[in-house]
């Protein structure tokens, strides 16, 4: 279990306990947090689960797999701290992770 904080673009803070093994995307979708569309259901084929992770977390997250950066090319306003939340699998190590949800997904 890890506490994940999702900050929506209207600055609302949603603190959610997400089970290990789920993705950060699933944690948002299952808890009705708005702003993560996840159109392809985690297939790394849509870039509509894009989030910005807090800078201090960048190095602590699992590295990007082949293809994630390619998909991020298509995301809304990608930045250096952009990730696809469907590629972030929750474990105890992610306890405390904070992600900002962009104002749009596409």
């Amino acid at each position, binding site marked *: 279990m890890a506490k994940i904080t999702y900050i929506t673009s209207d600055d609302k803070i949603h603190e959610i306990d997400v089970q290990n093994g789920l993705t950060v995307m699933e944690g948002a979708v299952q808890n009705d947090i708005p702003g993560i*569309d996840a159109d392809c259901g985690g*297939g790394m*084929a849509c870039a*509509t689960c894009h989030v910005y992770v807090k800078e201090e977390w960048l190095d602590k997250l699992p590295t990007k797999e082949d293809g994630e*950066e390619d998909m991020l*090319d*298509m995301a809304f306003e*990608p930045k250096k701290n952009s990730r696809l939340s469907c590629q972030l699998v929750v474990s105890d190590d992610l306890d405390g992770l904070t992600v900002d949800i962009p104002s749009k997904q596409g």
Partner: protein
Amino acid sequence: MNKTDALIIGAGPTGLFTAHQLKLIGLDCEIVDNLDKIGGQCIELYPDKPIYDIPAVPECTGEELTNNLINQIKPFDIKFHLSERVDEVKKEGDNWIVKTSNDTIFQTPNVIIAGGVGSFEPRKFFVKECEKFENQSIFYSIKDKKMFEGKTVSIFGGGDSALDWAVELSKNSKVNLIHRRDDFRGAQATVDKVKQLANEGKINLFTKFQMTGIKGENKLESIDIKSDDKEVKILKTDYVLGFFGLIMQLGPIANWGLNIDKKTIEVDTEKFETNQKGIYAVGDICSYPGKLKLILSGFHEGALAARACFKLARPNEKYRFEFTTSSKTIKNRLGVKGD
């Protein structure tokens, strides 16, 4: 006006197999899809990836699955309307009148929505003012490259479409190629070619830049691009092209009076009918308790919706359940010899 027993919206795996089921039981159908090709997500998002959970097919790629489904409906002459989006569905008497973006009109008692996660549309620039110039000086696909001759064209994107057009247009136009990072995802040979043309000064390459603004009153004059290090450049340009792939958008389906929740349409599990009589939803786009967004579920849903269509298309006939292995009528429809 095209009259048909059932109109299918969406040529993904679900729409294709639903067409097969309709034709087997003797109903006509036509299929509309906004993509320029058949296959939905399988062909657009993962043509080369293997799928392992199609019943009785241990392994096949998205493209192979699509080709097999197309082969399976070959015996029937089914009309496809590609690169057309269904925009309107309206009731008229006992029929639905369906209108597409190309003004094709259908009259049908049955509309089957196999629309997946929505229609595939180009991703657009996020700079708001871009809308104003869309289809005049800003484009997301190219119909006639002649218009760019002798002009300055700014191309955005890092995939094959962006790179191919940068190479092609650099022959007769001044080309700026702008991409958000140093790596390109296009074919290596094209990437090399672009880099060579950039070295020769035939393409102006701006990597780690993104568009932040656009200027021009009636005519596009220039665009602002900003780098990761906050450096801003102003590029004079006549045309802007954006190649950011496709995104699925529910779009017009939201306006047809259907019960929609979280981009899916509520249906019953007997006929896969929506809250509107004669409109069904099958595949990824439908929702009911226990729905699984899998290809195999779409096949089952399509088979049941097809049977439901029979009643409205042939009100004076009774549907008879038959096996393909033993029914003469079905074998005739398939054009195979009986035994």
